[in-house]
């Protein structure tokens, strides 16, 4: 059996790599990609948690949660990518640092 510590570490590392991507990249597509990484990390944690649950009977809650997260990721990507296209059509670049008009 895989020690749960390892899975936790894997999830944590993937998540922090994802956060680094979100903070450090200026291209909107890369931000969405890093977001996907973060979602994956979380999903590993959910599935592992249902697997290592103390109930004697096998628990499928983790996978159902995975299904929901999958649905979420799909919807979010659909909307996000349409926004990327819209932005490209308007500004002809994908630099999010230049989108800073919504302020005082």
């Amino acid at each position, binding site marked *: 059996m895989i020690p749960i510590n390892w899975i936790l570490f894997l999830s944590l590392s993937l998540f922090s790599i994802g*956060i680094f991507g*979100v*903070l450090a990249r*200026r291209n909107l597509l890369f931000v969405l990609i890093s977001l996907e990484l973060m979602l994956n990390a979380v999903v590993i944690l959910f599935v592992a948690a249902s697997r290592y649950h103390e109930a004697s009977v096998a628990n499928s809650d983790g996978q159902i949660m995975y299904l929901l997260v999958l649905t979420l990721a799909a919807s979010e990507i659909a909307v996000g990518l349409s926004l990327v296209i819209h932005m490209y059509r308007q500004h002809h670049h994908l630099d*999010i*640092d230049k*989108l*800073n*008009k*919504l*302020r*005082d």
Partner: protein
Amino acid sequence: MSLSNLLLVIPLLPLLSAIILLFCNLSRLWISVLAVGSISSVSLISLFLNFHFWQQTDFVLTASLGNWINIAQLNIGFGLYLDSLSLVMITIISGVGALIHLYSTGFMFEDKSFKRYFTYLNLFVSAMLFLVLADNLLLLYLGWEGVGLCSYLLIGFWYQDKNNNLAANKAFLMTRIGDTAMAIGLFLLFIQLGTLDIQAIQIKAHIVWSLSDNTIASICCLLLLGGAVGKSAQFPLQNWLPDAMAGPTPVSALIHAATMVTAGIYLIARNSQLFQLAPDVLYIVALIGTLTLLLGASAAMVQSDLKRILAYSTISQLGYMFLALGVGAGASAVFHLMTHAFFKALLFLSAGALIYSLHHEHNIFKMGGLFKKLPVVAVSFAIGCSALASLPFTSGFFSKELILEQVIASNSIGLWWAAVLGAFITAFYSARLFFVVFLGQAQLSPNKTPTKAMSIALIILCLFSLLGGIQPSGLTALMPPLNADNLTVLQHRLPIILPFIAISVAWWMFKTERFGKTQYSALKGIHQLLKSGWAFDQMYYIIFIQPFKFICQLNKHDVIDLFYRLIEKTSCVFHKLFSKFQNGHLRSYNASLVIFCILAFAWFLSGELIK
């Protein structure tokens, strides 16, 4: 109708007519009928009451209009109280008031604001009647403030001219200073004695305080005196009265000669038993009276404006009344009040007729030789001036002699000599006034004669000025006069021959044409000083107004406001600081999320570590 109900009608009738005049637009005829009619009815009622209580000394009539304030120990009602003092007052107020209303219908006929004038005038009479009929000090204060308000409204009647507004403000503010002192006195009386009912105060004061333990009583009396000094234009609050002549002349006659300025004297006379507990304060009253007497008389000697002479003369005569109150002769003070009301109203109304006929000319040195052209006015002026100078067998003679006798009887020789000097100067300036206006070279000629209404009022007042020497007997029982038997021959005869001496001096000066010109430059300074009423206006300007303006200048940037501006500045600073967080930069928002997570986990971990 019972007598109590009749008493209730007295102050309410003018109030009702004032309200009707305020809300209805009537023709001039109806306005006059309503206004004069209401005051005349009150006058008839008061004459009836006089008849009813003729020769009775100790009568009391009470009535009540209802409850006003009812909180814990404070029980004030709209109660009315009639005894011989109030009866004298309402007779004077309604009688002289009715005549002045009649006169005003003629005087103000061409004025545009006829209705407003009579509204204010009726309101004034109603407030004054409340003042003198009140049975508790709070209702008296209500009437006090009411007459102050109407005085302001009537002095500033022709409000289009800014000077009139300034004069009205001055009158109101200076009397306000006195009113504040009086209010504090009322508070103190209520705290100490637990009641504001006047008769109850007189009785309770003697129980709670005694002559040896009278500091608080003296303080209360001093505060009430403060109010009286303000309202009756005594030293040091006397310089509003000459400027109050900016109002129409009948107003000056009613308010500033016969009624409002006598409110202070009424107050002290009404609370005489309270004042007996503080003989020091009574002495101060006498001193103030004497000082004011001399001040007013000496200033009246050199004025050239007709109404200002009469104003200073009023101040001076009120000083006589205060002097009488101070030496304990309340009855003589009220008697002099009554005769003064008659002859001063007569003088003011004649002056009004003069001004009316000469097309609003006030300077006496522009008038002259009007004896033949305006006979009625001249005769009334003559009678009024002789009463003022207390020539024998005029009403003024009786009252002034009585006061002088009472002053002697109370052993204040210094005050007596001062009062005699004041009488001399009074006779001098009244003679001066008459000679300059009516005798000598004619300069202006009248273009109108006084109307019938004005003449009737003048004639009736002439009669009263001559015959008003009948002393109402009730007063002598209320405030018994001092024993006036031990007087020397000099003291007895001097006041009688004094006016004649003064008139002959004035005649000599008139014939040698020394009036209206100052030959000696040394005297010019004194002349200026006296003409400005002993420079009180300038003195008050230097003592009070200039330091105030200086402090305001210092506080130009409003020190107290600094605190609030500090708050505002702080919030602006924080706003600028926090708005830097909202920079529209997506990555910085993300970074702030991450930073928050870091901090939250650090907090959680520190908790874990401590465990």
